């Protein structure tokens, strides 16, 4: 009986581990990626934080830029739909 009680506790603990899931946050900072003629990413233009359905829309359909923007590398982005949107996080380097 003692052995079965121990077994039950262990199994519950195991299933507790198994059902604990790792989920990512719903909100993420996104940017428009700019590429050169060789297909290499040359600049990023931040477009803010997106969550839930808005995040899904911007990742799948792209971002509708409503006003002209100048990127850090000097490129000008005209208003329009930009489909190369990335919302991944980056390494944080202080030095």
């Amino acid at each position: 009986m003692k052995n079965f009680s121990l077994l039950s506790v262990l199994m519950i603990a195991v299933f507790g581990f198994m059902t604990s899931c790792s989920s990512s946050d719903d909100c993420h900072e996104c940017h428009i990626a700019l590429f050169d003629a060789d297909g290499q990413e040359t600049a990023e233009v931040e477009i803010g934080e997106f969550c839930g359905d808005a995040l899904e829309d911007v990742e799948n359909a792209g971002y509708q830029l409503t006003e002209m923007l100048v990127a850090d590398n000097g490129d000008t982005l005209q208003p329009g739909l930009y489909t190369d949107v990335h919302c991944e996080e980056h390494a944080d380097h202080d030095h």
Partner: protein
Amino acid sequence: MNLKSLSKTLIFTVLIAFCFSASAQNSGTVQDSENQPIDNVSVFIADQNILLKTNKLGEFFFESKLPNNTYLNFYKNGYVSKLVKYKEGSEFKVFLKKLHVALDEVGVVESYSELGNTKLTNIDKKSLENVFLRDNSMVESITQLSGVDIVSSGLGIQKVVVRGLSGMRVVTYLNGMQINNQQWANDHGIGFTDLGLGEVELIKGASALKYGSEAIGGLLFFKDSPFVSNKKMNGYVASKFDNSSYLSSSQFGLNWNKNNFFFNLYGQYSISSDYRLPNNDYLFNSRFNQNAIKFSVAHRYKNLQNIFRYQYHNENPGIPAHAHVDPADINIVDITSSSFDFNDAYKLLTPYQLVNNQLFNYNLNYLSNNLKLSLHLGHFINNLQEYEKWTRPAFDLTISNTQITPNIRYKIKDLTFNIGSQLSVLDNKNNEDERLVPDASTLNVGPYVILDYEKNNFGFNSGIRYDYKHLKSEDNILNINYDNEFSNTSFSSGIYYKFLDNVLRFTYSGSYRAPHFSELFSDGVHHGTNRYELGNENLDIEYADQFEFKYQWANEHFGFVLNPFLQNISDFISIVPTDTFISSYRVYNYKQYNNVEIKGVEMNLHYHPHQLHNLHIEQSYTFLQTKNKDDQYGLALVPANSIKTKLLFDLNDYERLVKYKFDYLSFYHVYKFSKENFAEYEELTESYNLINFQLGLKLNNKLLCTIGINNLLNKEYSPHTSRIRGVAGGVPNPGRSFNINLKYEF
């Protein structure tokens, strides 16, 4: 005495004789050369996967009669192990010779192997029972074998390399089932951990006929720990912590049996953050988490045994060193973090993988005298999702594989026949429109015959296998309509001769590998490797021939093994970069080389000094050279030559140290030579030294502890076979780290 009394006496005598013979058939004893009983000897009933232990009187008992010619393996530290064939009727007494040194055996060790006769076939074995306590991971533990290396990016993603070959060419089996988990890519790991595993057997090269011809590089056969025949439930709980990535991992195991019914249950949970480099930065997104649970049930009834196993494994590794530029142009500052935040350190970040594996295994064995009939049924389901975006995967693949393997093993005097076949049905399905590889299915049929002959000090084996593979792919999204058949014959043959303490073995094997659907039809971005991968529909079969020689010599203190080999592979399939970019990723094409040569030599030294019996020194040398005969370069991802040295110092002879619970000290040193022969797009890798240290403690009879330091010298190095060797000039492996591991056995 009248007739009635005489009858009673006779009946009584017969009954006594029957009882005596019945108990003699259900038990045995183990003694040393002075007829003293040996306790705690492991008695492994190999054909039934059941483990017994001898008691204080050297006795062991099994629940019901064993069939004739059942193999039993007897072993205990400090004694020469023995493989015995059971013969019913006579008293079962086994004698084990005490070793001159207390630690372990030097030289050829007699043991049972799933992969074949260990005298006639070159089979390496490694125990995995204490991997959780003593090693960083199962794959890193296996790399201690000569000729074996690793492709990895931290602990989250690891693959085995055997004699310079990996991926599709190193086939993995788990309890008799082939593991198909999209192993064609370097960012797809092995698919399971050391949880519940007892041992791994390895054949290098193509000699594993029974398990398929595609294992041109080698075959790894992982086996669960055996069922334990014991009067009470036993098991363990274990936990480990490593400060390189703040890894925390826990395992438990339970073994229980009643009469002829056996049950094993295991579980594991692991979580790890990004690993720390020698300069104290962290490799961003090298984190992972893993869960696993497995159980096995076995039942014996007379000569029949049924075993059912189920295993569920989930892992979520991050994909480090990801960027939207050519990997060679990445700045290491952009892929490493200087700070560590416990609040965020374990969260899943894109890109990452979600991997779920389920394995169902059923074995039916029938043993009778010289005959063993076995039937294996297996079903493996792998779901792999790779996320570069948060809300939809870049691809979502489910591969399911059903395998049926009947086998007949029959012994006639000194000959053993294995006749069988393998039927495998595999289905690869995309669950999303976006895809890298197409929907595809394969049907494989592979009948084989293997003959072993062994008498006194001479033996030979020979085998032949015919494989038929039907590959079909209908994919409207990638616009593929493909239907093709591949068939060929594989051979393996070997000779063995033992003269005094010298053992010589020569083997030849010829095999083939049909192209995989990933090699034929890939067309898309593979975020895990920072590539755009393009398949080649015109790829044809690879053919491999391997010649191998092995010489072994051993006495009580010293053992030596020399193992040169030569392998030729024609129509070798490889993936190579181009100067083209699509969607910011460099395009890699699959192509075929006419002829590739792989040759090398492996050596092992094993030494116990006479003056210091508690010191064990083991050294292995691996020298490997690859040549692509189509050009002046070598092959990609081939490990550098290496010398691996292990020193183990048993402290149990020193009372003062035992008083403080010290059990052993160990040092593991790896010297990697510089890698100067490589593929056209690779770079030279400098030589380096790596030292790991471990202190073993025996806190009491049930509680074991190890404290270790990895990369003691905090060496900054990037192995030639690192997945991220070509990124930012080579991303270093972890720097110095401390770990503590505990295991409580009950």
